[in-house]
């Protein structure tokens, strides 16, 4: 791994800190932390994950000079973040994470030359989002 790739890996892993904090808060609630706080963290993580996925879609579009499907990936993120649902389709909290996880994996698979930093970023982001999603399911937030 080159120096640039190491810097990029460090940069992107630091960016995952809010997701890690949200996952910890959700798994510590309701025993060590109030559930309301953990659910606020979940809202933050959902928006952060969505914004991150849209950013990554943009990065792929920029890196590959305008690939259109990345714009569509960003639109899929919008569905995950739409609060009340649309066209009589209301998504539960946990399933919104599934969309973001799907978009991240899609971006990773479609990325052509998969840089090490991007692989690590997507790998850890998916694990953290899956941790949040599984805890929400256990708490009954389908």
């Amino acid at each position: 791994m080159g120096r640039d790739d190491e810097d990029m890996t460090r940069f992107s892993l630091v960016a995952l800190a809010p997701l890690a904090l949200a996952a910890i808060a959700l798994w510590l609630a309701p025993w060590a932390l109030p559930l309301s706080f953990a659910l606020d963290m979940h809202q933050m993580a959902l928006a952060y994950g969505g914004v991150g996925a849209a950013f990554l879609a943009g990065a792929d579009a920029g890196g590959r000079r305008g690939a259109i499907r990345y714009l569509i990936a960003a639109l899929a993120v919008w569905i995950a973040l739409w609060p009340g649902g649309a066209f009589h389709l209301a998504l539960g909290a946990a399933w919104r994470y599934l969309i973001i996880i799907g978009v991240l994996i899609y971006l990773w698979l479609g990325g052509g030359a998969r840089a090490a930093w991007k692989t690590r970023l997507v790998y850890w982001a998916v694990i953290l989002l899956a941790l949040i999603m599984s805890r929400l399911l256990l708490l009954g937030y389908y």
Partner: protein
Amino acid sequence: MANLAEKAGAPARQGLPQAAAVLAYAGALPLIVAALLVLLRPDDLGPGAQRFMLIYGGLLIAFFGGVRWGVAVMRPEGPRFVHLVGGAIPLVLALPVFFLADPGARFLLILIALPILLIDDLRATRKGSGAPDWYLGVRAPLTILMEASFGLAFAQHLMS
């Protein structure tokens, strides 16, 4: 125009700018419709359309920042730290759009961020370190359309 096409890439990709332009304008269409709904049906459809616009705007800022990041990463000499930070700033700017309670403040943030990102992209392209010219040729009128849509919705929010 020939110069623009050369800068955009290989001749095989000449169809891409037009396709990207069509999709970009199609992407702006829901925003224009939502702005009209906020303006014309403020009581019943307006609140939903407003929420739609705010989420859309936040994601647009993140997406444009990502494009900047992607262009920086793909530079032949490798990414420079300053360009990576420049690409990450829109990501930080986009987050309050989702967390602020006041829709007016969220609209204002989007209205300020979009032209700043465009100006920054134009400067980078002029220096030869940004996106290709055709991208900005699409992006500039698109930003004006988006600004008009967000501006209308913001004005309606202030009047209500």
